[in-house]
C-alpha cells in the first residue's frame, strides 16, 4: 500500500534536516503505529506524505499503490486514496460542514472519473455515518469545526474519513485533547473502517490510544528515523520504560 524509501526531508525556510532516511512499508489491511518523543519527525512525516508546503524532500521516495506521491498535489494524493486526520483540525467559518463534505466527496469522485453523488444519496450516507459517530444534525450544519470542542473536531475528522473512504489513513495524534469517552468513540469509528483493503498509520505519543486501536506493527521514531520496529508489545515497552532506553540503545 504505502512504500517509503530512504526519505530525507528538510524545512524549506531554514536549513534544518527533519527526516534522515525513513524506510517504511505498509501492507494492505494492516495498522501501523509510529511512536516517538517530541521533535522526532512524526508529524513532519504525515505532512510530507499528504503534501503540505514548507518541506523539501532532499532524497528518497514515497509511493501509494505504486504511484509516486511526492510529485502529486495534495488534492491528487487525496483522490488517490490518502487521508490525513489532523492533530489540529482547522476551523473554516462561513462554510457549512455538510457543504464541505459534499464538495470534498464530489471533487474526489470527479478526479477519479466517477459521477458526482446526488444530493439525496449524499444526505442519506452522511446521516448514517454521522449517527455512528454521535454527530448530530446541528454539527453537520455548523461551519466546519467552528466552535467545536476538541472531541467534536476529532470525531468530525473521522466522519470525513468515513465519507471519503480512503485506502491509506494517517492519524496524527488523534488522541491529543481527548477524554476517555471521546477516545473510545473515535477509536470505535476508526475500528469500524478497518478492512482488508485499507491501511492505517497511527501517530501517537502514548500507548493508550493503541489499547483501543490495536496495531499490527509498532515503530519507534527518533531523530528523523525509525529506530525500532516490533509487534504491539513494543508499545507496552515504551509505556513502561519510556523512550530513554530505546534511544540509548541506538546511541
Amino acid at each position, binding site marked *: 500500500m504505502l512504500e517509503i524509501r530512504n526519505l530525507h526531508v528538510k524545512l524549506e525556510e531554514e536549513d534544518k534536516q527533519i527526516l534522515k532516511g525513513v524506510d517504511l512499508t505498509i501492507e494492505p489491511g494492516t495498522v501501523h503505529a509510529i511512536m516517538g518523543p517530541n521533535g522526532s519527525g512524526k508529524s513532519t512525516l504525515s505532512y510530507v506524505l*499528504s*503534501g*503540505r*508546503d514548507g518541506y523539501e524532500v532532499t532524497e528518497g521516495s514515497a509511493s501509494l499503490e505504486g504511484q509516486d506521491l511526492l510529485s502529486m*498535489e*495534495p*488534492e491528487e*494524493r*487525496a*483522490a488517490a486514496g490518502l*487521508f*490525513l486526520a*489532523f492533530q489540529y*483540525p*482547522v*476551523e*473554516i*467559518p*462561513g*462554510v457549512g460542514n455538510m457543504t*464541505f463534505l459534499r*464538495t*470534498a*466527496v464530489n*471533487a*474526489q469522485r470527479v*478526479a477519479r472519473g466517477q459521477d458526482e453523488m446526488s444530493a439525496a444519496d449524499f444526505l442519506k450516507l452522511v446521516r448514517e455515518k454521522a449517527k455512528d459517530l454521535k454527530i448530530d444534525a446541528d454539527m453537520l450544519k455548523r*461551519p466546519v469545526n467552528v466552535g467545536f470542542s476538541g472531541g467534536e473536531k476529532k470525531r468530525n475528522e473521522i466522519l*470525513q474519513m468515513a465519507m*471519503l473512504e480512503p485506502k491509506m489513513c494517517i492519524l496524527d495524534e488523534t488522541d491529543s485533547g481527548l477524554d476517555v469517552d471521546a477516545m473510545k468513540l473515535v477509536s470505535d469509528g476508526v475500528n469500524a473502517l478497518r478492512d482488508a483493503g485499507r491501511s492505517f498509520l497511527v501517530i501517537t505519543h502514548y500507548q493508550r490510544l493503541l489499547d483501543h486501536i490495536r496495531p499490527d506493527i509498532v515503530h519507534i521514531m527518533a531523530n528523523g528515523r525509525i529506530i525500532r520496529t516490533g509487534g504491539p508489545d513494543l508499545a507496552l515497552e515504551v509505556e513502561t520504560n519510556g523512550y530513554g532506553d530505546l534511544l540509548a540503545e541506538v546511541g
Partner: protein
Amino acid sequence: MALPAAKQGALNGRLATLSLPEAGAWGTEARRDALARLEAMGLPGRRDEYWRFTDPGLLNAAEPATAAAFENDEAPLFSAVDRLKLVFVDGVFSPEKSDDIALEGLEIERLSEAMSRDIHWVREVYGVLEAGAHSPVPRPHAALNTAFARDGICIRATGKVSKPVSLIYLHEDAGSDAILHHVIRVEPGAEMTLLENGPAAARFNKCLEVDVADTGRFNHVRAQGRDHERVAVTHVFARLGAESTFKSFTMTVNGVMTRNEAVIDLTGPDATAHIAGACLGDGAKAAFHHDDTVFVRHRAENCESRQVFKKVLRNGATGVFQGKILVDPGAQKTDGYQISQSLLLDGDSQFLAKPELEIYADDVKCSHGSTSGAIDETGLFYLRSRGIPEGEATDLMVIAFLAEAIDEIEDSVLAEDVIERLKGWLARRRRS
C-alpha cells in the same frame, strides 16, 4: 467664508449641469437649504482629510463617465425571496415594473408625492439627518443629493412587516447619472427589512435616511455589483431611538469607484447598531476602488455598536476603510467594536485603513482592529488534503474570510443567497 478656488471650481462645474427639481410645499425649502449647505462646503478634494485615499474626481465631474451594463447568466440576487419589489430604471421609479405598493404595516409613497403635501412625516426626516451629519466631516455629495434628488421612496413601517421591501436598481442607459433619496421611518415596535440590489446607473448618488423610533427594528441587506465601470457614492444616515435595532450589510463586487458612507447616531439608551460590509475587488477587467467611511456616534448610555468590514482584493484593486466611533460624555456602558480586514490575493492590491476611536466617557468598552494578510495556508492545505482542488479551496477560504461580515445578516436565507452570489463571482473569476 469663501471656498478654496479648487472646491469652488469643482462645485461650479457640477452645478452647471444640475437644476433644482420642481417640488411643492416644504420640498422646495428642503432642497434650497441643502443647496445652501453644499455651496458652503464645496465639493471634496484630495487634500480633505477623509478624501486622501479616494479620488473624488469621478463623483465631482459634471458628467458621468459612460458605463456599459454588464450581463451575466445568473438570476439577480434575492430572486427566490418573497418580497415587495420596487424597481428603478436608471434612477427613476418604474410603477409598471414594480409590485403594487400595498403591504400590511407599511405606508409607501414616492418622494415627489410626499413633498407635495404640507403636512407629512417625511418632512421631519428628509435632509434632516443629512444636515446633522456634516460635523466633524462635511459630506457634500449627500447635501447635493438632498438638493437634486430626482426620485426616491418614502416608507413608514407601523407594524411588523411580513416580507422585505426590495429596491431593484436596473441600469440600461450607459450615460445615466442617477440621484436617489429614500426616507424610512420605523415607528415604535415596528420592524422591517429593506433589500437593495442592482448596478443602478453609470453614476449613482444615493442617500438613505433611516429614522428608527424607540424599540423599532430595521434590517438592511444590499448588494452593489455587476457593472465593472459603474461609479457610486452612497450615504446611509441612521438615527436610533431607545432600545431600537439597526442592522445593515453591504456586499460589493465590481465597480470602478464606490464610496459608501454611513453615519449612525445612537440617540436613545440600549440601542444596537451593526454595520457590515463584504467586498470582492478584482482590478483585472476595470479598475476597482472601494471605500467604506463609517461614523458611529454614541450619545446615550448602554448602546452597542459593531462595524465589521472585510475586503478581498486582487489585480491592483484598492480597498479603503475609514471608521470612527465617537462616544459622547455621558454615554456610559457603551460597547463599541470595529474590525476592518483585507485579504490581499497578490502583491499589486492595497488596503488603506484609518480606524479611529474618540471617547469622552470613562466607563466604556471599545475595541478596534485592522489587518491585511494573505490567504491562510493551513486552512487551504486542510481543504486540499480532502481532495478539493486548489482553486475551489481558495474560494472557500475567501468565503471563510468574509464570514464574520456575512454573519451580520440576521436572516439565514438572505445570508445563504449572498454566499451563493459570492461563490458564483469567485467561480467565474476562476474560469476566466
